């Protein structure tokens, strides 16, 4: 195996191929705090890409209720247990944020390139089974769950919605496992694709992807996966006149929780300093968004603002160290972060750069005992060529219905 640097782990790790990076990387931030589980994203994806025979069971985008729901069922607890078995008591982060345990590449048995499993047919059948079965959870109370399950009004149970698409990983496990080199990462945007002509339906990618995002098409007998809506990202959809556009799941988001874009990479794979790219600001400056299960080692590129109300132990397992910091950054956002968060879902186009025009103080309050001041700044979004896409203010405008329409619906 080659040695590659994984910045999310803070160390080198083993990977079957030598380190190479795309010029740009497809990335997104999902704000789990605001998702309403309407599944509009899932339907937007399905009606665009997976409406044909053989794709009936496919949800390239799915939203599951954590901690119990999952598609395929129990995908994360399964791979976590496999890792724990391969490295008993070793799956830990050290104080300085380095991951000391084993990735799915490092824990691979000798006869495989990646540690994984092939989900059963039954596990694929239900997109969110167990979402409401917390009464089955016999807990010591450690995770904040009541022993008898959810009990109103004083219940302690918690849940949150986890939105999932392919992470277009920097070190894709799917590509690592494919014995045919049928999976490739595009140099221009880092989108990971399965070559439909070279794939021979071996399903090694399904077995290896810890996020279980490649899926076998029984009609075509080859595997498919989320394609990152690459025609939209390329700007070849007529809607935006050649300007790069966000994916279907992002732009359809009713809860306005998603923002997707492209980040420029240095040759070593680190993010180029791009102070006014909203993703750069949220991930690298404000550190409000974290990768999903970074310990798997694939360097996933969807970043999550963790849910505020969920036990930290659980969140740390899911998003790695930095959970507390991220939640604090979200609870009382800096003046800049608050403005950046207004960029979510004002346009279908990819925002490459933002500028902020300072506005007046809107109000002052206390967040967890600390003074918090909100300013009504204006944030301006620019497309790749520097043209303005839109501008919006932090304070949502209050629109008062005129009296003659007061009863109109």
């Amino acid at each position, binding site marked *: 195996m080659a040695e590659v640097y994984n910045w999310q782990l803070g160390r080198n790790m083993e990977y079957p191929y030598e380190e190479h990076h795309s010029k740009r990387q497809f990335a997104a931030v999902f704000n789990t705090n605001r998702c309403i589980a309407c599944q509009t994203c899932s339907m937007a994806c399905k009606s665009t890409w997976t*409406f044909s025979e*053989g794709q009936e069971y496919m949800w390239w985008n799915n939203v599951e209720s954590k901690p119990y729901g999952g598609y395929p069922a129990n995908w994360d607890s399964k791979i976590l247990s496999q890792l724990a078995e391969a490295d008993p008591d070793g799956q830990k982060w050290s104080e300085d944020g380095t991951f000391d345990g084993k990735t799915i590449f490092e824990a691979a048995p*000798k006869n495989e390139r990646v540690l994984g499993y*092939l*989900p059963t047919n039954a596990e694929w059948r239900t997109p969110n089974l167990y979402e409401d079965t917390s009464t089955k959870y016999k807990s010591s109370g450690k995770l904040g769950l009541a022993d008898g399950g959810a009990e109103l009004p004083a219940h302690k149970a918690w849940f949150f919605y986890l939105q999932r698409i392919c992470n277009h990983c920097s070190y894709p496990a799917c590509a690592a496992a494919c014995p045919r080199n049928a999976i490739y990462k595009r140099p221009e945007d880092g989108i990971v694709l399965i070559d439909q*002509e070279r794939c021979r339906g071996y399903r090694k990618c*399904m077995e290896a992807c810890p996020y279980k995002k490649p899926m*076998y098409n029984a009609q075509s*007998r*080859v595997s498919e996966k989320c394609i990152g809506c690459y025609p939209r990202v390329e700007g070849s959809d007529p809607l935006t006149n050649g300007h790069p556009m966000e994916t279907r799941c992002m732009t359809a988001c009713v809860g306005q929780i998603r923002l997707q874009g492209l980040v420029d990479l240095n040759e070593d794979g680190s993010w180029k300093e791009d102070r006014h790219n909203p993703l750069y600001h949220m991930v690298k400056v404000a550190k409000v968004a974290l990768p999903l299960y970074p310990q798997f080692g694939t360097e996933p590129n969807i970043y999550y603002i963790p849910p505020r109300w969920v036990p930290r132990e659980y969140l740390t397992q899911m998003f790695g160290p930095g959970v507390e910091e991220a939640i604090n950054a979200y609870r009382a956002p800096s003046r800049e972060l608050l403005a950046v968060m207004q960029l979510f879902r004002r346009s279908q186009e990819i925002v490459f750069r933002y500028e902020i025009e300072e506005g007046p103080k809107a109000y002052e309050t206390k967040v967890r005992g600390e003074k918090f001041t909100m300013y009504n700044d204006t944030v301006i979004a620019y497309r790749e060529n520097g043209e303005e896409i839109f501008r919006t203010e932090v304070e949502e405008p209050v629109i008062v219905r005129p009296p003659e329409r007061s009863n109109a619906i």
Partner: protein
Amino acid sequence: MRPNTGLSSVAGAATIAALVGFVFFSVSPATRARAADNTRLDQLEKAGDLLRAHKVDGVLPTDPDDAKWAAASEHEVPLVSQFAVAPSAAKLTRSQISVRALYNDSEFALLVVAADATKNDDVSTAGHFADAIAVGFPTDYGEGIPLPYIGMGNEGRPVNVWQWKAAWQTDIDSGYRGVTEAYANRIPRAGPINYVAGKAAGSPLSQTSRTSPVENLVAEGFGTLTSTPSAKLDGKGIYKDGAWRVVMKRPLKPNGVGARIRVGAGLLPITFAVWDGAAAERNGMKGLTRWRFVVFSGENASAKQATPASTVLAGADPAKGKSLVAALGCTSCHALPGVASGGIVGPDLSYAGAIHRPEYLLESIIKPNAIVVPAPGYFDPTSGLSTMPSFYNMRADEDDPDSPLIVTDDDFRDMTSYLWSLR
């Protein structure tokens, strides 16, 4: 001195390099008597390296039950899990297939019988894999042309693979089994909109009408296997009494890309692979055989291109080889039978002789970089060189060219004969 190795012309001055470079490809002088060929064939046969193809009149059978197969002699061929490169089987196993071969002036046909407890021909859900049987030939072969690396070949030495698939057989026998057929009770599709990406991209797997259950492929190393249509490659498989009986046949001249089968030009190198769908076997997870040779019974062709193990390893002592393997530390990287804590860095060598020919084994010990298997851990990705050290030409005192060799040419052959005995 060792007993005469049959290499008397070079024996006196033979360094192992000469042996490697010479024995494999052109051991004999240009004119050899027929008798020499016969001796060679006998030796190959004794080592289980020979498959005799019988000439029959008329069209070759496609049906495994055809009476004509009785004319062909049956050969038992040991099959061992592919273990050199991940993905491979989790556990090494050894089983057996039987092979028969027929030919006439224009065609060549094989009948392979492989025991299989379950018939797996359904690939209509993500959790199902189907049985398959393949046969491989070097695209080019003959005197002086080295054999490709077993299975997928290697750069510059391509292989032609014919793969019969149980799923394709069922497609032919009872129609393509897609989602509609697999889920009989599903609600019928309302609209005509149906885009099957694999089919649109031209994947041979996605084509819903086919004429042959056998796919023609070429490969030039791991991960390079590519489907290339060959109109006249045909076959038929029947599952009966706990075994697949599969016929594959083709005109001698390929119809497209593939190996030419030259009946009059000597031996045809051949190898087999078997996948068990029930064990989720696919790709490199398969049973594999080493290169063997088809001899065409009615032809008077030369057998010079194949070197019997008894020639390569003449006089070599497997018992001595075994202790050398232990003494030189081979087991710290390789698993070998009887070694409690065999290494896992290099390939498991428990059945080395069932998968590799002696000349390959000898070459890979002496020149680990001759063919580098591109598996993680086996080589340095930057230099492309094998992780395995070579003891070739290493002297007890590095600065003294007259000090004794750490491993002599004879030692190398002893070790090879030990590995070759692991079948």
